[in-house]
C-alpha cells in the first residue's frame, strides 16, 4: 500500500532549517544579480563603503548624524538635490527616533 506522500506528486518546499547546498533556479538568478552588482561597483564606491565601515562600524547613531550633516562617505557621489534629500531624511529620522526614545 502506498503512503499519501508517495501518491501526492506535489513537492513540498524545503523548510528553511533544512540544509540545501544545491541552489534553486531563483537562487541562481539572485547569485547572478549579486555578481553583477559586485562587478559594477566602482573603485570609488568600494572606497566609500570601506570608509563608512571604518568610521562608523555598526554605530547607527554616528552614521545617521554624519548623513544628516552631509559628511557620510556614501554621500560623496550624490548630486546636490539627492544630498539634500538624504540629509533631510536622516534628520527627520533622528528627530522621530529621539521622540520615540523619550516616550519609552
Amino acid at each position, binding site marked *: 500500500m502506498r503512503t499519501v506522500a508517495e501518491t501526492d506528486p506535489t513537492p513540498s518546499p*524545503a523548510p528553511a532549517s533544512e540544509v540545501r*547546498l544545491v541552489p534553486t533556479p531563483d537562487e541562481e538568478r*539572485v547569485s547572478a544579480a*549579486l555578481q553583477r552588482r559586485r562587478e559594477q561597483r566602482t573603485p570609488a564606491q568600494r572606497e566609500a563603503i570601506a570608509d563608512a565601515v571604518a568610521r562608523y562600524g*555598526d554605530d547607527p547613531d554616528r552614521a*545617521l548624524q554624519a*548623513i544628516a550633516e552631509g559628511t557620510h562617505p*556614501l554621500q560623496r557621489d550624490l548630486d546636490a538635490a539627492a544630498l539634500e534629500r538624504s540629509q533631510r531624511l536622516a534628520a527627520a529620522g533622528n528627530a522621530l*527616533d529621539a521622540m520615540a526614545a523619550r516616550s519609552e
Partner: protein
Amino acid sequence: MIVGPDRLLAELGRYAESGRPPTTRDTFVEALAEAEQLRGADPRSEPAALFFALAKRSRAMGGLAEYFVPDIVRAVAEVLGYEIDADDVVLTIYRARILRGFLRWPEVHAAFAERLRPIGAPEVTAPKRPR
C-alpha cells in the same frame, strides 16, 4: 522566500576577503523565518521583509552588512521583477534606524511600497501644477 539560508551564507562569504562569512547559518535561518512571517502571502513585500530582518541582524555580519544587505535586497527584488527606487544612502538610513530599534516593520513596509517599482517602469514624478 526565494533564497534560503545556505545561499545567503554562501553569498555573504563571497563578500569576505577570507571567503568565510563572519556569521552562522542560524542568523539567516532566523532572519528568513522572520521575513517570511512579515511578507505573508504578498511576494511584493518580500524585499522589504528581507531588508527588515537582515538589517536587524547587521551586527552579526560585521562591516560586510554595509555591502551585503542593500545588494542582496536589490538582487532579490530584481529576480522578483522590481527595482528599488532608493540609493544606498537611503537604505543606510533605514538600516541604521532599524538597528536603533525605532523604525518598525509597518514603516519599512510602507517605505518600500512607495519605492518598489516594476523593472523598466518610468520614474514617478510629481504632476506639474496648472498655470
